Structure formats: structure tokens, C-alpha cells
């Protein structure tokens, strides 16, 4: 059974609209992450969280907000979506166990901003 799920799996939005991407994990991990994947760039970290109520900026946070209301849920919010935010978004969870911080990824959300 999938431990990291994302919704929606596909989304088409209009420029200037608000988009919320949701992530849920059943791993009971403290840490959660949002990445985007674009051709030629691999995955890049947008925001991450080390527990409920916390959010931290990653490498490319501009234009995105994050919310971690609970251990299980982590949302990525695009207040004013732009075409440059068209991408595939991945959520991940992880925490330190026996010295290792292995991350586990969800299936991804394909977002198109027209």
C-alpha cells in the first residue's frame, strides 16, 4: 500500500489562479519535502518541513508557499500560478533512522498552467 500519496495526479490551471497540491504520508515520518522536476534539471527542492507547523525554504522557493498542518499532510500552494510553474511535482517523506535520512517519494503531480 502506497505510503506517500499525492492529489491531484494531474491538474490544469489558468495563469493567475490559485493551485494547491496535497501530499499525505502514512510512514509517520517527521520530515516532508516538495520537489519539482523539469527536463534538464533533475529534481529541485522547493520547500521542506521537519514537523507539523514547520516549513523551510529549499533551493527554489520563489512563487510557492507550503503548509504542514499535521504529521501526515504537507501542501504546496501556488497563490498566483504562472506558466513557468508548469512541471511535475513530487512529494517525499523521511526521517533519521539508524543514522540514515532516506527519503521516499510519492507518484508525482503533473501541473500545467495555461
Amino acid at each position, binding site marked *: 500500500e502506497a505510503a506517500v500519496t499525492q492529489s491531484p495526479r494531474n491538474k490544469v490551471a489558468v495563469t493567475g489562479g490559485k493551485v494547491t497540491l496535497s501530499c499525505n504520508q502514512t510512514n509517520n515520518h*517527521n*520530515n516532508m*519535502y516538495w*520537489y519539482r522536476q523539469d527536463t*534538464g*534539471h*533533475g*529534481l*529541485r*527542492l522547493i520547500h*521542506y*518541513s*521537519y*514537523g507539523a507547523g*514547520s516549513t*523551510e525554504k*529549499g*533551493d527554489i522557493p520563489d512563487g510557492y508557499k507550503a503548509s504542514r498542518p499535521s504529521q501526515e499532510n504537507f501542501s504546496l500552494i501556488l497563490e498566483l500560478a504562472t506558466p513557468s510553474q508548469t512541471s*511535475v511535482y*513530487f512529494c517525499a517523506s*523521511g526521517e*533519521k533512522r539508524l*543514522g*540514515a*535520512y*532516506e*527519503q*521516499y*517519494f510519492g*507518484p*508525482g503531480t503533473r501541473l500545467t498552467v495555461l
Partner: protein
Amino acid sequence: GDQVEQSPSALSLHEGTGSALRCNFTTTMRAVQWFQQNSRGSLINLFYLASGTKENGRLKSTFNSKESYSTLHIRDAQLEDSGTYFCAAETLPPGTGSNRLTFGKGTKFSLIP
């Protein structure tokens, strides 16, 4: 420049043969994770290494933190190995209890029929 340089960008192998993928790090990294992204786009965990070598089936990975590189060896390549392989280097931001991953740009692997 990029912190994680992954090579080659593409690799084609005949079934049953093998090769190595490499990631070079421009700064000291604490650990490395390797992933396979399959045709559906899912990221599959292959290895997590803070040092040394791990092996799983036909895959073997090594992380040399002193010389700032990691390798992934594929032997006896099969169709199910197709996809894109990513390395991701780990750092630990102070005060968060979390890690951060910086990904390479990936190696697109395909099997030559």
C-alpha cells in the same frame, strides 16, 4: 556550477552487459541516495549510502566521501533496468533534524534490442 555532476547523461547497453554511472560532488556531502525513475515516472529507492559499498541483486553502489564521488554499477542489464537513474547528495541543515537532497540531472538508460 552544479553541486552534483552526473555522467553519462545517456547510456545504452545490450542485454546481459554492464556499465557504471558516476556522480561527482563539488562540495563535501554526508551521504548519497540513488533512485531509478521508471516509465510511469515513479521514483524507486535503490541505495542509501553514508560510506562504503552496497549491493542488491545486479546493482552495486559505492560512495567515497573523501574523494567526493559515488558510482552505480549495473551488471547483466535487463529490460526492467530501463529508465532514468538519479543520484542525490545529502546535506544536513543545522537545527532542523532534517536532511536536504541535491539531485544530479540523471542518466537515461535504455536497453539495445
